[in-house]
């Protein structure tokens, strides 16, 4: 038991914790939940790179634990951010959310630490299922709809991944999850499966559709894991695939444009996740050792400041109950601490002295070394853009802008504590990035190329600070100069989800029309035409036969034509009423039998 929990995949710690949660009550439950990421953090810390543990299953050896520096970076940040999330969620009492979060985070850690495609797929699906409960837990009609679309997209993505994995195994005979070198149907299917979770274009719309519908705590948790595990899997399997550079750049720009149009604060933050994951996907596509370290570093930093921003948005929702920019404003008066942490998170997207500055620099440098001028410019543009929207637009519209007369209390202490913790990390690691660089893959290379002491970054390379500040200040200037153009309205923007939301309705309506028309036609044909004519035939054939038989008999008897007519009428009447005297019926039956016998 201890072997499995503490010396194997740290995911099992979370899964085990989830089993115990329902038996705990009150704050013990909260404290227990907080303790799990702490224990997991130290477990991750003590895992030696190079460790592999296998488990025999069917004819394969499943690598349930594979440790290297890349997986450890993600292990660290996943445990740190879930620790902060559980502190933030100290107000929460419901077991459902705790269990979902523990299984969700646990399986994200599981994905990061397994070494084969089977185990990866199992954890991948667990993540999809349990994250859905975080959206369902809000229990509104719109969240139910969003959860339905979310799980459908992820099931589709999971099936595509599964198809790819099965094809890959049948082609190569190996289930190891290592770098894919051949470009074939199987690897493209696996890539698509990963890209769906990374919210890459054109599979991006599920993220801004679903996350803003989650609960307050759910939103904070969701923002960190699904897309970042996808970045991890891309870095592991598809580093250096050129197609990712284009996809990443497109995501970065798409995120900015949609976020600018957005009126819902959590949707704005969701689009800025797509934008930032775009940076990571692009740099994974570059694929050099420095680039991969940049991707890991940026995932690490992005989780910290984006969780912080989601927490500040969550606090506002928790206190005010509103999410639209058109309904918010002037909150700086009563929520100054939330505002402070929000601004730290906002600045941490790229300002000097914060983590965004040190992680984006690696990415930009990696693009520079490969002389990728166009991606370099696009990333710079997107970087200015994300500061414009997550850094200025979001705090401005929520905390300043027009006072809407809202006077909520400051956020609960646990929320402030969690935000304070992440804010500290934002600034501390921004000033002393060496702690981060040391845990990155290729740490020596990163430290050789990047300055990593405070004096080196902010004094000896002051020119970089100056250029960055120029960029940020002019972005801010544009925002305030063009503020009238950015006025919010009560609208939503059509995204890629239009294709399946309207598409499903269109499909339903088409099928409705088609099948119902077919139904009507069939009813008319069978009920109105076919059945009456069968009835007529069934009636007239015996009549004709009987009348003819009658005529033959009367011909022998030489009766008068009048009797012939009256006999015909009598037969017709009996036929319609079905009331032949029993004797005649019996004779007719006998005749029929005789005919059958002869034939």
């Amino acid at each position, binding site marked *: 038991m201890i072997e499995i929990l503490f010396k194997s995949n740290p995911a099992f710690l979370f899964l085990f914790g989830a089993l115990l949660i329902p038996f705990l009550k009150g704050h013990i439950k909260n404290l227990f939940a907080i303790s799990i990421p702490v224990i997991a953090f130290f477990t991750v810390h003590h895992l030696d790179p190079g460790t592999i543990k296998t488990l025999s299953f069917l004819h394969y050896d499943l690598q349930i634990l594979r440790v290297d520096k890349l997986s450890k970076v993600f292990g660290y940040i996943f445990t740190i951010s879930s620790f902060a999330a559980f502190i933030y969620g100290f107000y929460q009492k419901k077991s459902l959310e705790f269990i979902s979060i523990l299984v969700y985070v646990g399986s994200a850690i599981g994905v990061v630490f397994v070494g084969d495609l089977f185990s990866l797929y199992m954890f991948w699906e667990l993540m999809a299922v349990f994250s859905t409960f975080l959206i369902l837990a809000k229990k509104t009609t719109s969240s139910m709809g969003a959860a339905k679309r979310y799980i459908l997209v992820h099931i589709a993505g999971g099936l595509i991944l599964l198809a790819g994995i099965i094809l890959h195994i049948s082609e190569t005979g190996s289930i190891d999850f290592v770098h894919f070198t051949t470009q074939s149907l199987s690897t493209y299917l696996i890539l698509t499966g990963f890209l769906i979770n990374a919210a890459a274009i054109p599979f991006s719309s599920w993220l801004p559709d679903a996350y803003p519908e989650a609960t307050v705590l759910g939103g904070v948790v969701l923002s960190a894991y699904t897309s970042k595990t996808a970045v991890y899997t891309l870095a592991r399997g598809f580093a250096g695939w050129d197609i990712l550079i284009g996809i990443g750049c497109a995501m970065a720009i798409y995120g900015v444009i949609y976020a*600018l*149009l957005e009126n819902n604060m959590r949707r704005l933050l969701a689009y800025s996740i797509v934008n930032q994951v775009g940076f990571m996907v692009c740099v994974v596509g570059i694929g050099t050792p420095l680039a991969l370290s940049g991707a890991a570093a940026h995932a690490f930093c992005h989780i910290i400041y984006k969780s912080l921003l989601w927490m500040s948005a969550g606090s506002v929702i928790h206190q005010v109950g509103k999410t639209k920019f058109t309904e918010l404003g002037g909150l700086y008066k009563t929520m100054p601490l939330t505002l402070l942490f929000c601004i730290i998170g906002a600045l941490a997207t790229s300002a000097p002295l914060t983590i965004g500055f040190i992680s984006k620099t690696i990415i930009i440098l990696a693009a520079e070394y490969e002389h990728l001028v166009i991606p370099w410019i696009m990333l*710079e543009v997107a970087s200015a853009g994300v500061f414009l929207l997550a850094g200025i637009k979001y705090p401005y519209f929520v905390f300043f802008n027009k006072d809407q007369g809202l006077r909520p209390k400051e956020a609960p202490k646990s929320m402030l504590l969690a935000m304070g913790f992440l804010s500290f990390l934002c600034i501390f690691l921004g000033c002393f990035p060496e702690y981060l660089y040391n845990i990155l893959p290729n740490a020596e290379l990163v430290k050789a190329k990047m300055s990593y002491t405070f004096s080196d970054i902010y004094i000896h390379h002051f020119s970089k600070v100056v250029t960055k500040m120029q960029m940020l200040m002019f*972005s801010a200037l544009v925002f305030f100069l063009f503020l009238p*153009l950015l006025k919010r309205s009560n609208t939503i923007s059509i995204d890629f989800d239009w294709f399946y*939301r309207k598409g499903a309705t269109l499909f339903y309506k088409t099928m409705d029309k088609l099948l119902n028309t077919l139904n009507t036609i069939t009813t008319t044909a069978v009920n109105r035409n076919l059945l009456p004519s069968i009835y007529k035939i069934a009636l007239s054939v015996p009549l004709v036969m009987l009348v003819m038989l009658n005529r033959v008999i009367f011909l022998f008897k030489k009766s008068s034509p009048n009797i012939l007519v009256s006999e015909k009428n009598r037969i017709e009447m009996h036929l319609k009423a079905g009331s032949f005297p029993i004797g005649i019926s019996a004779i007719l039956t006998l005749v029929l039998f005789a005919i059958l016998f002869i034939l």
Partner: protein
Amino acid sequence: MSQSLNNEFFEKESTKKLLWRVLWGLCIFFLFIELFVERHGHFGDHSIDSYFGFYGLLGFFSCLICIVLSLIIGRFIKVKEEYYDRDIV
């Protein structure tokens, strides 16, 4: 009463004016200070990013382009909030 007066800080016209001046001041300050730092282009010594004020212009125009693009695209894709309400998925 003094509390509520303090709280109106950001709505005063004088504050707004001051903040505008601070913003313009910072922009000019960081442009000015560039004159005194040594800087090299990332793609060779004479590449476009080595010119004076390149990053300020980049920040300004990239944001402007993003805003204009979003306004143009917004004309086509913005719909009412109830747009999807009657759909089945």
